[in-house]
């Protein structure tokens, strides 16, 4: 940015605005040869440029109101809880809070908030631009379509983990707040507090990566992503009723395996061995990469026919 540092130098212009340089130098565009010589540097610059444009859009878009609501809703509940006096049975058993948090996290944050947050953020990355008729802005650039998909995907992941990572951490602290500072200090320094929180944040990140890839792909391949999103929600929600082999074809199965506190699945559940984190984490990342590659193939053949979309 060509910002003028001193008021004297602004010539009465707003220093927060861009101003033309006094002399415009003639700049040769990057040649194909130089780009071929340094593809990683170019791809990095392009990815960063896409990230800058997309992250702003991801946080300010009107469609993201639902995401704000989903990430703030559990915080609001726990703020209320922290303001009200705790029941005696709860006060006497602070260990129960970890189970309460596990229920809140797995039932609401993971299955609803992050799920629908990712639907809103990631299906919007390409489908939203088609609806707003702005996708040609990127498609008229000399950017590898894989780089475009990666840039948009990373912007979605950064936005989603900002929303839900902060929400998860805030909820975790708020849940333990009524027990007092001394308990919290002990829980986080000597107890399992910090490792649990870290594990929940990792699960949130993996959920954003996994669901994000799936919904980015759906936004590219399907005109109305709501129907497949609904079907996936049903599949993920009732996954525990499925035979063990089918349970493994879901994101939630692997995420639950990494959660630090496991919950009873209920009387109707079909018990399945939890998958080792050494398989869950690379497995989720691998599937996400495959879906992103498939999305790139779709973008390579994408046509701009806004009128018919």
């Amino acid at each position, binding site marked *: 940015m060509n910002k003028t540092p001193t008021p004297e130098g602004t010539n009465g212009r707003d220093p927060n605005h861009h101003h033309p340089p006094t002399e*415009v130098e003639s700049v040769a565009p990057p040649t194909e040869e130089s780009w071929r010589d340094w593809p990683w540097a170019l791809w990095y610059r392009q990815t960063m440029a896409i990230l800058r444009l997309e992250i702003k859009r991801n946080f300010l878009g009107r469609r993201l109101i639902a995401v704000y609501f989903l990430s703030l809703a559990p915080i609001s509940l726990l703020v209320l809880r922290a303001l009200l006096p705790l029941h005696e049975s709860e006060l006497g058993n602070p260990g129960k809070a970890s189970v309460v948090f596990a229920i809140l996290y797995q039932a609401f944050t993971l299955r609803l908030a992050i799920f629908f947050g990712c639907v809103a953020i990631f299906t919007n990355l390409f489908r939203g631009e088609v609806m707003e008729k702005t996708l040609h802005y990127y498609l008229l650039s000399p950017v590898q379509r894989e780089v475009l998909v990666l840039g948009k995907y990373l912007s979605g992941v950064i936005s989603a983990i900002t929303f839900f990572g902060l929400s998860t951490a805030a909820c975790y602290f708020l849940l333990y707040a009524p027990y007092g500072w001394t308990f919290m200090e002990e829980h986080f320094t000597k107890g399992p507090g910090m490792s649990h929180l870290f594990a929940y944040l990792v699960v949130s990140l993996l959920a954003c990566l996994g669901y994000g890839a799936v919904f980015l792909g759906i936004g590219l391949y399907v005109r109305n992503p709501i129907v497949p999103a609904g079907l996936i929600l049903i599949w993920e929600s009732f996954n525990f009723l499925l035979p063990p082999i089918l349970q493994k074809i879901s994101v939630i199965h692997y995420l639950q395996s990494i959660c630090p506190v496991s919950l009873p699945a209920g009387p109707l559940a079909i018990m399945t061995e939890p998958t080792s984190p050494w398989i869950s984490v690379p497995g989720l990342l691998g599937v996400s990469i495959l879906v992103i590659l498939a999305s790139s193939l779709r973008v*390579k053949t994408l046509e701009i026919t806004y009128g018919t979309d």
Partner: protein
Amino acid sequence: MSNDTVTLDNVSKFYGEVLGVNRITLNMTPGITSLVGPNGAGKTTLLNLICGLLRPTRGKISVLGIGTDHPERLFTKVGYCSQFDSFPKGLTGFDLINGYLRVHGFPAKEAEQMTWAAIEKVNLTDAANRRVHGYSKGMRQRIKLAQAISHNPSVLLLDEPLNGLDPMARSEVIGLFQETARNGAHVVISSHILHEVDMISDRVILMNNGYVVAEGDIHGVRDEMEDHPMQIMVRCDKPALLAAHAFQQNRAVEVKLHEDGGGLVLRTRDADQFYLLLNRVVLDCKVGIEAVAPTDDDVHSVYQYLITNDGGKL
């Protein structure tokens, strides 16, 4: 495929069963090429095909030797001012161009300099820090042009670039196109403002219903249209005498005398021979000539002849 031409080889595009363009074969050399045709003629489809926003159902397209399925190479050479009048939300004019150049991969400093250079070329410097969504139609058109030229492309594709511009801005923008073409670039303009296209084009591609109906220098195209006699207006003091000579020498198929008796409009199948006859009549019969001008070798007339069955009437 040639490395300095824009080449379309038997290109067709169908939207389902709807024809976009059909069997287009073109070879565009540097200079200003105009695509002319009514709504639905296929002009925008053709431009979108050339820049890879659409994929041809059949045929091949090459832009300076680059296939349109290689956007990472294509758009280092191509700038496109599309008809799409929508922009990413929340961006100022500066952000729009600068972001576009950053996505190209230009480093920050170069991108900023090039952004200002492009914005200055379209005279939008004062509005550069305002949000594009608040721009007038003409300003939006100019910022799209700035985006198209910002990376100094060798091929500039412009879809109705004069829409929404006032006469002064049109004149400036046309000057910009001419300068770009003089520097050796291909400038392909789709427009329905025929007289302006006629003035600036090195060649014209006439389209109708998805087909190219004629291409080339507009006067050359007109000369080859033997089915439509050339229409020539002569202002002179003895129009009846001139008409008589023209019919006598079989150089006119139809003549209409002006009501004021000061001239005539004549249709001839051989304009060159008529002009020779006119010279002789002027010398032999002492005819005073005030003006001589063909009246139907402009883009509009040629286009009307080509897309209608109207044989032309005086």
